């Protein structure tokens, strides 16, 4: 009953933003940049997607705008933190603050509204039907009619894995994360590589935001990322930034969120189901990290 067709259908919607944001965080993590501004960058992406889709009348315009402004947010992060040497945590706090303030500000300025912007002119990201899948197995509910961004997220998981392992930039990025001084003596600029990593993470967060605002729904509400960026941070830490671990972990947290949504229908107060992902995140992270701590991987 809990896992009926509607539930399976909803699952990718919960997974996709977490997956994209966690991949963004993973790239920074591997380059040893502690980016906890995922939340803010997602929010900027969500707003830009709505603005772009509304203004251009196309979903591509929305996604492109989300990627552009996500990337710009990443560029700003890179400039303040890497170029100017600001503390990662302080810059992250500043970026998250900037995201909340500026999206509400622009909501007023561009759409003259408070709280929420909702208009038929916002074009949604299309869903891909897979008619050949058998309806009986549930696979059809799960995979058919899911957003382009869901499939993009899956593809990016493997693409980023491949990039990290096999590509020049991926190798240099891991090296920058391991020992930036050594990279300098190898004649490369760790700052440049890390900055590129942060910009890429901004673009990915932009996509995550677009999934929230023009794919799951077609509207923007204030602070709509609602802590998902922090769940993504937890996923990154749990998986030590390895994309192939991030995918199942993001699915797990998507499942919890979807489940919470479900249980809410059964009469449990919304506050409890809303809190569920954060409590689970904290407990699971604690379990994973204390095992690593015991085996001496971290001190």
């Amino acid at each position, binding site marked *: 009953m809990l896992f009926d067709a509607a539930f399976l259908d909803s699952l990718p919607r919960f997974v996709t933003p977490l997956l994209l944001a966690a991949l963004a965080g993973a790239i920074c993590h591997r380059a040893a940049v502690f980016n906890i501004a995922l939340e803010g960058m997602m929010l900027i992406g969500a707003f830009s997607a709505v603005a772009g889709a509304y203004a251009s009348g196309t979903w591509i315009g929305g996604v492109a705008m989300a990627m552009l402004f996500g990337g710009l947010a990443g560029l700003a992060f890179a400039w303040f933190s890497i170029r100017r040497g600001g503390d990662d945590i302080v810059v992250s706090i500043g970026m998250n603050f900037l995201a909340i303030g500026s999206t509400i500000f622009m909501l007023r300025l561009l759409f003259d509204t408070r709280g929420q912007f909702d208009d038929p002119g916002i074009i949604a990201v299309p869903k891909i039907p897979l008619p050949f899948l058998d309806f009986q197995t549930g696979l059809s509910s799960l995979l058919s009619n899911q957003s382009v961004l869901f499939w993009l997220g899956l593809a990016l998981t493997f693409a980023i894995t491949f990039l990290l392992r096999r*590509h020049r930039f991926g190798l240099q990025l*891991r090296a920058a994360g391991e*020992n930036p001084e050594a990279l300098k*003596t*190898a004649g490369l600029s760790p700052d440049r590589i890390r900055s590129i990593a942060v910009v890429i993470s901004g673009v990915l967060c932009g996509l995550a935001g677009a999934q929230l605002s023009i794919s799951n729904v077609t509207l923007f509400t204030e602070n709509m990322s609602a802590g998902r960026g922090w769940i993504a941070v937890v996923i990154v830490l749990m998986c030590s930034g390895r994309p192939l671990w991030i995918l199942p972990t993001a699915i797990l947290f998507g499942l919890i969120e979807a489940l919470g949504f479900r249980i809410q229908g059964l009469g449990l107060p919304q506050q409890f189901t809303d809190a569920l992902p954060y409590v689970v995140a904290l407990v699971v992270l604690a379990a994973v990290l204390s095992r690593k701590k015991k085996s001496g991987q971290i001190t």
Partner: protein
Amino acid sequence: MSNQPVSGKAPLCRLSGISHAFGPVQALDDVTIEINPNEILAIVGENGAGKSTLMSVLYGLLQPDAGSIEFEGVIKTFRSASDAISQGLGMVHQHFMLFPGLTVLENIIVGAEGTGATGLIDFQAKISEAQKLINQFGFSLDLKQPVETLSVDSRQQLEIVKLLYRNADIIILDEPTAVLTPQEIESLFSMLRRLRDDGKSIIIITHKLGEVMDLSDRVAVMRQGKKVAERQTAETDRKELSELMVDGTIEPISKTPSTKDAIVLNVRALSVAGAHNRPAVDEISLNVHAGEIVGIAGIANNGQNEFVQALVGLVETNSGNMTLNDRDMTRASVKERREAGLAYLAEDRMSVGLALDATVAENIIAGVENNQTFSKYGFLDFQAIRTHARKLVENFDVRTSGVNQKVSDLSGGNKQKIIVGRELSDSPSLVIAENPCWGVDVGAISFIHRQLLDYASRGTAILLISSDLDELFALCDRLVVFYEGRINAQFDRKDLDIFAVGAAMSGDHQFIKAGGTGQ
């Protein structure tokens, strides 16, 4: 002074009139030096003489304030290390520049992955290229192994392979022997000779004159940022070089044997857990008597660090016990151990020994802040603290603008003097000194050594952990060698032999005469 290249050809590279200042400090002052193919050039000088700065300029990491670098007669400007690398320069830094989580192969190719349009790395081709180099020069390295699991000498081999992979013609090694056993040094030297005979230029930066005489063809001496002399190695000797290095002679120090008194530190079968379910410290027993200096030698990561931390109370022990002045301290807190007379000169001065962002006075009262002299009813008495700090700064000759100066602004030697002053001023009964002379200038080294000898002569027990065998040989009554968390050998002062110690450091029992458990 002979500047003629050995081969009679024009020099491969020439640095002329190089000057560089760090703020008010003139680190390099009009240095001119030539580098020839088929030659091993040694650059010697004390800490702070400017050797490393000169190499950083050559390697493009620093821009000179004045002077030029020529390659085969053409002036070049290096804006970064990559400019220098493409000119055929390669450098093995004193602290290895490796990526521990990456494999040997990945370490070799970072920054030289090839220039394909797609950026995809052709791992098959890279493996065969790298393997060819390894075979050609007789290295023993597994390309797939993660670097964090490599031994120190393998890491050094890897550094050299990295340079050869980039076709370096000029190979610079900064203090390459600091972390090696005598045996490993021998094999490194024969490898370097082979590279020289292969047409490479080798530059070795060192302050160990024995190695200079053993290895180099030509030697340049630096002192206070200037090149003060240059000699063909065959035409000089250790005595002349050492006088050139320090501008006069330094009284060599040596320990007068202690009369074995009461046991101050008594360690029984102490074990500390380590990574991968293997003990970092494996049932070590050791005594240190009053007035005795016991040295601990060993290659890095053989348990010395964990042993010291266990003695100070910074890590938990698994089993065994220790007493300090006959009081059981196995489960005692750091504070209790300190109150019982333990002093600790930490190897990591920047974060363990000092709080860099705090003032001189704040650093000096650490550990005694709660004494009645410095605080009443939980509040600090700044008057008393300043007076005490001023006195200590004066007694230990710390050069500072005042006790409210931030410690981060002080030089390495002065930082260490603050630690030495703080730790010794409370008349400790046991001093644990971990590489107390790392990175400090000659003056501070001899000051610290004299302090240690002085305290030992007054009955303080001293445990000296050092990676500098010369230091250990000069100061110790007794030397124990750590290997894989155990005491592999121990030597009395009269039995000290460099090769036997070296063998014990690398786990070899062949040369060891006096084995034992350190009683």
